[in-house]
């Protein structure tokens, strides 16, 4: 194992944080097995880059950002009919797999390529999960002003990317 953390420390971190991350990943990719793989990837990335995190950064917030980014990235890689259907039976979490959410996830995955993990996480929470800016700020230890700036940058990014690719939304969506 890389880094200063021993196997026991990693196991402890996994036990305390993995459940929330499993819920998060499953709510995006719709499949509990794939969510488990994504959580492994999340911890691997977090531990490999741990030295670069600020000492004050909340491990939860960092892991949550990595997990959200990894899940959206996984959606981008499987833009095919057979793989795009979310697995309702395997679904875990409270976010639902209704058609509108699936459409919005597809659109978001397409439009957000190139955003940072923090920007992507804030955008997903706001546009997909319905979090208010205040809710995002308190959940991720960000200031309300920072959340507002991130969402403004996100909207600008989406406009440019949509214009560059000729993106067309086929359904009404608030993304």
């Amino acid at each position: 194992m890389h880094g200063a953390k021993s196997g026991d420390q990693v196991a402890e971190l996994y036990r305390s944080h993995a459940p929330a991350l499993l819920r998060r990943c499953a709510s995006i990719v719709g499949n509990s097995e794939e969510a488990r793989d994504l959580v492994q990837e999340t911890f691997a990335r977090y531990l490999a880059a741990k030295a670069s995190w600020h000492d004050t950064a909340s491990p939860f917030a960092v892991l949550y950002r990595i997990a959200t980014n990894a899940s959206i990235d996984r959606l981008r890689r499987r833009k095919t009919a057979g793989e795009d259907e979310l697995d309702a039976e395997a679904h875990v979490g409270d976010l639902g797999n209704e058609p509108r959410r699936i459409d919005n996830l597809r659109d978001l995955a397409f439009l957000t390529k190139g955003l940072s993990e923090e920007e992507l996480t804030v955008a997903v929470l706001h546009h997909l999960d319905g979090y208010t800016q205040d809710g995002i700020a308190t959940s991720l230890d960000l200031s309300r002003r920072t959340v507002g700036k991130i969402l403004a940058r996100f909207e600008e990014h989406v406009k440019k990317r949509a214009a560059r690719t000729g993106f067309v939304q086929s359904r009404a969506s608030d993304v």
Partner: protein
Amino acid sequence: MSDRAFTDIELERVLAGDLAQSELDAKATAADRERLEALRTEHAALMSTIDVDAEVRAIGRKMERLEPEPAPRRLASWWRWIFTGGALAAAAAALLLIVVRREPAPREDDIGVKGDGITLIIHTESRRLATGDTVNPGERIRFEINAARKGFVTIIGIDGAGTKTTYFPYGASAAAAVDPNESRILPGAIALDATPGDETFFAVYATHPFTTDEAFAAVARPTSGLSSAEVVLHKQP
């Protein structure tokens, strides 16, 4: 959630020990406490199906395969290309075969592609390019794709002005049949011209024949049966 003072994420932070219980105790509503208990139960159920030691070993294996983070992506406007064939393409192919053999340990994407997805890698004679990389006028590039099984592939590009180009098969109106198990490097090479700017390259794949018009539509809006991968490059003036 109007009767809640805490979001689900905050409650999960409490369960993870990342947020002090005292913060919750001071402000939590009855609905918060009910939701906290529901999440605690759900978390316990999730963890009851998982062998933590096995997960830790899997995390270690994934760390071994991690590469340094790529440079931040550059977003900008882009460029134009000219297509060259014949001897130039053959020369580029020979050079690239050498380059590919000198590649470092492959990323996970290179090892295999699940389902009907596709990956796209762009090579010059001397390096492998990723989104955000800068290239120079005169550099020649080739395309490498990977897919789980035989199918049909086209490489298309859209520059900053919205100009659309089909690079593979060059100028064609339909995707070409490919077998990634035989060769992942596509035939033909592209030489960059001197016009600066950005361009997004897409590899579009399906297990059935499709037209390049369908490919351009698919990258504008995810389409059933077609999958895609993309690389955005920046060309210096």
